[in-house]
C-alpha cells in the first residue's frame, strides 16, 4: 500500500466528498480530494504531523460555488496532494483558516480574501494584502455570471476513487460500471485535440 493509498483512505475517513487519483505525469499531482470545510483543519493537522508543507492556495469561482485548492507536498517523498473545499453559498462563503497549523497560510488566505472576498475564519489579520484597502467594487477575480464555467467544464481527469452522490462532479447514478473510467474518454481526446492551426 503506497502512501498515496493511505492518504486517499485518510481523506475518506474525514468524510471526503470526491476523491480522484490524477496521472502525475500529466497533471503534476498524485491525489485530489474535496473535503467538507469542517474536516479541513483535522486533515491539515495530520498532514503537518507527517511532515507535509503547504505550498499554495488557489481559489477559483465556478457556477457551483468557490473551489479553494490547497497544494501540499512532502519533503521526504514525492506526494503532491490537492485538498479542496467547495463553498456553495457564494455570498456567505466561509472557510476555516489554517493559520493555527500552517502560519504561512495567513498570506495565501488574505490573497483569496483580496481577489474573491472569501472569509477565512480565525485568520488573525484578515486585511487586504496585495490590493488597496479602499478598493471599490467587487473582488477583481470574481467573474460575471455569463463568464462562469461549471466544474464539469474543467474536466478534472484522473481515476475516480470515491464520489458522494450529491457532489456536483459525481457521475450519473444509473451507470455504476462507468465510475472508474469517468474521464478516460476525455483523456484520449483532450490533449491531442489541440487547436494547433490557430492563426493570429
Amino acid at each position: 500500500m503506497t502512501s498515496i493509498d493511505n492518504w486517499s483512505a485518510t481523506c475518506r475517513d474525514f468524510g471526503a466528498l470526491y476523491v480522484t487519483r490524477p496521472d502525475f505525469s500529466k497533471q503534476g499531482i498524485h491525489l485530489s480530494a474535496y473535503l467538507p470545510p469542517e474536516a479541513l483543519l483535522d486533515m491539515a493537522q495530520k498532514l503537518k504531523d507527517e511532515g507535509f508543507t503547504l505550498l499554495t492556495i488557489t481559489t477559483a469561482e465556478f457556477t457551483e460555488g468557490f473551489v479553494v485548492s490547497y497544494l501540499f507536498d512532502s519533503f521526504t517523498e514525492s506526494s503532491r496532494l490537492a485538498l479542496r473545499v467547495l463553498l456553495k453559498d457564494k455570498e456567505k462563503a466561509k472557510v476555516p483558516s489554517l493559520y493555527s497549523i500552517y502560519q504561512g497560510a495567513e498570506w495565501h488566505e488574505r490573497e483569496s480574501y483580496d481577489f474573491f472576498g472569501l472569509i477565512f475564519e480565525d485568520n488573525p489579520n484578515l486585511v487586504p494584502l496585495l490590493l488597496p484597502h479602499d478598493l471599490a467594487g467587487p473582488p477583481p477575480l470574481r467573474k460575471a455570471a455569463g463568464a462562469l464555467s461549471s466544474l464539469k467544464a474543467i474536466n478534472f481527469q484522473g481515476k475516480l476513487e470515491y464520489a458522494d452522490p450529491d457532489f456536483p462532479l459525481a457521475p450519473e447514478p444509473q451507470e455504476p460500471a462507468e465510475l472508474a473510467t469517468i474521464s478516460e474518454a476525455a483523456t484520449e481526446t483532450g490533449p491531442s485535440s489541440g487547436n494547433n492551426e490557430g492563426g493570429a
Partner: protein
Amino acid sequence: MASWLNFINPFTIDDDPGTYLGDFYTDNFEKGAQKGNVILNLGPQHPSTHGVLRVLVELYGEYVLRSEPVLGYLHRMQEKMGEVKTPYQYLPNMGRVDYLNPIAWNWAYAGAVELLAGIEVPERAEYLRIISAELNRISSHLLWWGAFVLDLGGVTPILYAFEEREKINDILQIVTGSRLTMNYFRFGGVGQDGDERFFALIGEFIPYMRERLKMYKDLVTDNVILRRRLEGIGPMDRDLCLRYGATGPILRAAGVDYDTRKAIPYGLYHKFEYRVPIGPPNDNFGRYIMRLEEIEASLTILSQAIESIPQGKHIIDKAPKPAYKLPPGEVFFAVEGARGQVICHILSDGGKTPYRIKLRAPGFSNLSLFAEAAKGTILADAIAILGSLDLVIPEVDR
C-alpha cells in the same frame, strides 16, 4: 518613555489613539503595540528592502518586537492578465513576474501548458532550456550576492557581481534578444537556437566564473566583518520552513534535501550529475553559502550541457500559434527557480483563454516567515535576515 519623546515623535505609541498619523496599515499594526514603543516604517522606498517592500516594525530600543511586511506596491494583476490573454499572448508576462529570474517563470508557464496540451519538446530544446535556466540562476544569485553584501555595508562586491552578470547577459542576449525581461521559451521548444558564438562564450565563462568564485571567497566570504554579521543570525529550522512553505536555498540551508530538479524532475535534469548543496548551518551564513555553492552546481550542469547537447530542432514543427487554445483540464507544474519552487497552476475550461491561472511565487512564502524570524533581533540584523531571503518584490506581489 519620557514625555518629550512623545512630543517629537508622533509615531510613539500613546494612550490617545486619535493622535496617530499613520495610514491604514500603520493603524492596523499599532493596535497591538505596547505603550512607549516606536513604530517604524522600513520602506517602501528604502534600498535595503529591495524594490518596493514596506515593513512595519515595532521597536523597543533597537530590538524588533514585532514586524509585518506590507505588500502590494508592485501588484500588476498578473493572474488576471492570464485569464484575459491567450496562452501565447501571456508568455511574455512571465519574464516580468520575476525580472531577475525570468527563465524559471518562462519554464513554469510553458511547461504547464505543454503538460496540459501534451506537447513534446525536442531534445536540443530541452538542453537549451537547461543552459539558459542555469545561466539565469547564476546571474540571479550574483545580483543577490552583490546586493546582500551591500545591505551589510560592503560596497565593492556588487561591482564585481555586475561584471560577471554583464557577461551572462551578453550570452543570454544572443538567444533571447533581451537582457532583463527575457521571453525565450515557446510552447514546444525555445525561441532561437544557439549559434557557435553562444556556446563558445559559455565555454569561456565557466572557467572564468570558477576563478572568480575563489576570489569571492577570499575577498568576501572569509571576511571577518561579514562573518560576524551573518553567523548565528536568523536561524531558520526545518519546522519553520515547513509551517511557512519556504523553499529553495532557505529550505536547503535548514538541512532539507529538497530541490525540485531532483525531487520532481522536469526537462532533462535527470540526465545531469550535480550536487545540490544542503545545510546546516541554517543561519544567514548558511543561506549565503548555499547560493554560492549553487553557482558551482550550475556551472557543473552547464559544462555537461554544452558538451553533450545533441543536434536537432530547437522547436517542434507544428508549434502552437498565437490563437492557440488550451484543452480543458487542470495542471500543476513546478520548477526550481533561483528563489525556490515556482508553480504554475492552470485551470482550463477549453475556452480561448485559461479559466484561472495561479502563480506560486517562492518569494511570497519565503517572505511570510520574516515576521517570525526577525522577532527579538536587533534592527540591523533584521535587515540582514530580510536580505538573506533573496526577495524580488515584483514576484512577491505579482
